[in-house]
């Protein structure tokens, strides 16, 4: 699965690199949400635990594995494009911006939906729904068991 911890040194995390090139990933993500503009950096920053921020080369092996697993799990969560229907809610409660038609959304197992970029950033820190606190991994496992 396309795990891609982007780092400048290839040595220690070569196992975790996928085939996505950096350019295509950034294109796919689109411009950063407004609250991130001032912290935009070339090097991606990871959060092995809440309140801990490190670049890929500063991560321990254990943290790299945890992050790679998390990226993998996130990639299994359904995404969608906002089509203007109000079924998915109208506002992303993370950035408090209204959904615009055509914006990529991610839908959690509890059916709460957010801007894809907003929720992915949160899920890397805490694997829970920010609205209902439902642990996302528990819900994912239930989905697997019942399907």
């Amino acid at each position, binding site marked *: 699965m396309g795990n891609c911890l982007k780092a400048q040194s290839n040595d220690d995390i070569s196992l975790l690199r996928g085939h996505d090139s950096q350019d295509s990933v950034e294109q796919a993500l689109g411009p950063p949400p407004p*609250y991130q503009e*001032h*912290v935009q950096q070339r090097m991606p920053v990871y959060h092995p635990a*809440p*309140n801990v*921020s490190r670049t890929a080369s500063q991560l321990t092996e254990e943290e790299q594995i945890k992050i790679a697993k998390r990226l993998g799990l996130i990639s299994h969560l359904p995404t969608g494009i906002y089509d203007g229907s109000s079924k998915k809610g109208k506002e992303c*409660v*993370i*950035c*408090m911006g209204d959904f615009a038609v055509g914006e990529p959304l991610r839908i959690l197992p509890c059916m709460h939906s957010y801007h894809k970029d*907003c929720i992915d*950033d*949160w899920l890397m*820190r*805490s694997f*829970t729904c*920010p*609205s209902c*606190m439902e642990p996302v991994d528990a819900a994912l496992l239930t989905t697997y068991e019942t399907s």
Partner: protein
Amino acid sequence: MTHYDFEVTGSKVARCHIKVDMVNDNFLELIGEIIGPPDTAYDGGKFKLEINIPDTYPFNPPKVKFVTKIWHPNISSVTGAICLDILKDQWAAAMTLRTVLLSLQALLAAAEPDDPQDAVVAKQYKENRKTFTQTARHWTNVYANGPHRECELEKILEQAKNMGFDEHKARVALSSSDWNLERATESLLTS
């Protein structure tokens, strides 16, 4: 438009008695205010809060502490530091300054003495509730402009002041020793 411009505005604010103001036009430093909830020792007091918004907000919680001195098991009577789960590990990105201030108001109405920030206050809360309530009401009256005076405590404080002690230090010592003048005097002299 920044994220939290939206957060505290709206008609519900007036009814809940919370507000947020900017300090020096810098939206990362804010001053909050909550009114003590009715039917509690904090009733009618105006409590000011220092709020610092981290760069990573809303992925990390705002840093909040009381500026107004307060007598509460989960708030340090010395520094104003707050022990509240949502300001630490239970923070979620969907929370807002509004939910934080409302949670703090709820904390004033329902203390968690088993998870204390101020051990002295928590002990008094558990072992001598009547004295705790009087003390909290007295602090609210003196520091938060609350409407309810505690004349009994004021008399004891006056005695300590007449002995030449600083008013605030005397209040802390008396509050910490269940308003026993002899014990308070002793701790004031040895500190």
